[in-house]
């Protein structure tokens, strides 16, 4: 049995505990819409000093309540899944956004794109075959050939521009990865120290979870929780953060510090005290936004550009060969219409004939008004088909990414929902907690009043006989 004032302590512990409960409810309410905030719950522990001496017997009923723990309502498994799916989502949506932008620049199907320019050129050759003597018809061929060359060049310029933007983007992403990694390492350390001091590190944990999620989004990084609670973050199988130390994530090759291309394939490296490792490339390499940007720069855009190069090369080769087979208005053999440098690609495509008389419309020499070669010129080459396939491929890629992104958005959304169910703040719930704590506080205070009155009775009103 506790002493006379034991129960006052019990009442006091109730007051204290419920004040903490109110604090925690207040904090939850205050952070109801804070990103990354995980709700806390006070776990009360009823106090007992049942640590009785040997052979003695404890006949108390407990000495009140203490704050056992302010628990962060988080689920490490769910967090890991959220990170994984968000990594994949940011990979898909980044790829989709970039490709969709390229696609908008294509302008197909429509009356203004490269395809329409090809058809216009074909018709101009036919018109020239109707009227091989007409300067207007010849000028029209030159004009439309220039339009086509320009349309192809501007598509290449779109892609080159996008590549340049994405290279700069990659360097920005790398620096963001480093900031996040060093931040996470620092938090690892702070959490360890704080908790060893016995202080609550919930806020730090919230922040560390957010950084781990951001790293997953940036690089598809995988976070594992060590036995001491520290986060180890690995990118493509190599540790980037271990304990309080973060490695440096480095653009090893492919992109210069100013965002130019250095001609080699893009690769990444992690320099850390545990070694310097070049990360694998392709699907085994970094994922997330950086992975998407890398793949776009390594595979997608170059292959589309190569397709345009092939279209331009076929256009120039087939038209120039047919030009050479015919005769121009002066009766001389036809010279090349298109200039094309295979080392530069479609960007070098241009019309090199300036004098309309130099178009080889005739298939007989001597300056005859024949349009046979112009007719053939309208029919050479497979470039319209190749271009159609190219556009179809791009459209299919974007449409597939659209669908996959939509699925992934749903999946990530469901996981976010599950996490929110676990970690989100429900205002009704907090209001109930608040009311409960308030009532409990009032009751503890009443207990104190009651005990005071009991002691008052005992001390001041008992044994008045002898006075």
């Amino acid at each position, binding site marked *: 049995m506790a002493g006379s004032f034991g129960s006052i302590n019990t009442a006091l512990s109730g007051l204290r505990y419920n004040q903490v409960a109110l604090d925690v409810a207040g904090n939850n309410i205050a952070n109801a819409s804070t990103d990354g905030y995980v709700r806390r719950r006070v776990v009360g522990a009823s106090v007992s000093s049942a640590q009785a001496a040997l052979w003695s017997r404890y006949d108390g009923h407990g000495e009140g309540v203490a704050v056992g723990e302010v628990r962060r309502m988080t689920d490490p498994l769910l967090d890991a899944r959220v990170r994984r799916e968000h990594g994949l989502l940011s990979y898909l949506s980044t790829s989709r956004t970039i490709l969709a932008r390229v696609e908008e620049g294509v302008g197909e199907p429509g009356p203004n794109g490269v395809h329409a320019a090809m058809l216009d050129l074909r*018709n101009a050759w036919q018109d020239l075959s109707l009227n091989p003597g007409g300067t207007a018809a010849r000028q029209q061929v030159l004009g439309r050939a220039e339009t086509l060359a320009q349309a192809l060049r501007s598509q290449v310029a779109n892609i080159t521009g996008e590549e340049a933007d994405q290279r700069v983007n990659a360097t920005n992403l790398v620096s963001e990865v480093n900031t996040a990694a060093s931040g996470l390492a620092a938090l690892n350390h702070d959490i360890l120290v704080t908790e060893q001091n016995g202080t609550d590190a919930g806020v730090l944990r919230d922040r560390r979870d957010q950084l781990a999620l951001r790293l997953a989004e940036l690089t598809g990084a995988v976070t594992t929780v060590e036995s001491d609670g520290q986060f180890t973050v690995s990118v493509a199988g190599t540790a980037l953060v271990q304990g309080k130390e973060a490695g440096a994530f480095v653009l090893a090759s492919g992109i210069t510090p100013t965002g130019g291309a250095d001609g080699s394939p893009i690769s990444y490296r992690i320099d850390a005290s545990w070694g310097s490792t070049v990360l694998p490339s392709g699907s085994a390499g970094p994922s997330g936004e950086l992975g998407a940007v890398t793949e776009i720069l390594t595979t997608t855009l170059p292959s589309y550009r190569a397709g345009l190069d092939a279209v331009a090369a076929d256009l120039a080769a087939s038209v120039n060969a047919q030009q050479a087979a015919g005769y121009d208005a002066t009766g001389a053999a036809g010279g090349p219409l298109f200039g094309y440098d295979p080392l530069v690609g479609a960007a070098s495509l241009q019309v090199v004939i300036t004098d309309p008389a130099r178009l080889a419309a005739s298939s007989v020499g001597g300056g005859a008004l024949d349009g046979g070669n112009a007719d053939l010129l309208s029919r050479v080459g497979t470039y319209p088909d190749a271009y*159609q*396939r190219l556009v179809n491929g*791009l459209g299919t890629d974007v*449409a597939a990414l*659209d669908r996959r992104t939509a699925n992934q958005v749903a999946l990530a959304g469901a996981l976010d929902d599950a996490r929110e169910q676990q970690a*989100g703040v429900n*205002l*009704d719930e907090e209001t109930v907690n608040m009311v409960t704590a308030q009532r409990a506080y009032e009751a503890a205070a009443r207990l104190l009043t009651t005990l005071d009155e009991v002691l008052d009775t005992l001390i001041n009103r008992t044994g008045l006989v002898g006075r």
Partner: protein
Amino acid sequence: MTIGRVTQRMLTDGSLANLQRNLGQLAALQERLSTGRVINRPSDNPTGTTAAMRIRTSVSDQGQYARNAQDGIGWLTQVDSTLDGVTTAVRRARDLALQGANTGAMGQQARDALAIEVDGIREQLLGQSNASYLERPVFGGVTAAGRAYDDTGTWVGVDGAVNRRVADDVVVRVDVDGRTVFGDGASSVFAELDALATALRAGDTAGITASVDVLRAREDTVTGVRAAAGTRYQRIEQSAQAADDAKMSLTNNLSSIENADLAETTVHLKLQEVAYQAALAATSRVMQPSLLDFLR
């Protein structure tokens, strides 16, 4: 979906996501309505895009074939009307030769008059042999010189056919080699008429009679060439019709692939608008209540 706890944030996030999706669908429909097209970029429908591009190629080709055919029809019309005149002229020359061969009823003076008319017919034929369409002689092959025969009746054209492509693999010749109609130099209709005029002036009955046969043969030749050109005219006219028809049906196809059905899209837009308004209303109601409204 099992819902354990529901938080205010889930409600707001969910409402926002749904509003976004609704608004996105509204934007997509609005794009269709304002552009009038269902395929605004390849990814809207990759297969449809390919089909649309192929059909655009065909529409453009058929349009060009129709233009080519129209031009060909111009050439062949010119050829036909010229050959009509040539037939009449040659027949008239033969009539004159027949008259001239009638020695009993005709004096030399009358034959001289016939010879003058024959000279006139020769001039007329020379003019017809240089008939042109859009400044190109239709009997001169691919010559750039502007005439098919010189004044001596010698063909001065350049060998070569004037062709018009009127379908993918159909090329129709739209000119006529003057030599198959008028002959060339010594074997030309002009030499034949010269011979007739000479024979008439000389009263050479045998020569005149020979000319009658020669001119009959020439008339047959011209008629034959005209018939052949007429056949080609028919072919090219049919091709023009076919190209026009094909262009029209292809344009319809293209429209059914690319263009939005305005009525249908409008109905969808209306439905989507209703859905959006419902989402807005639901959001505004969901945001309102909380336990705090009921505790005093």
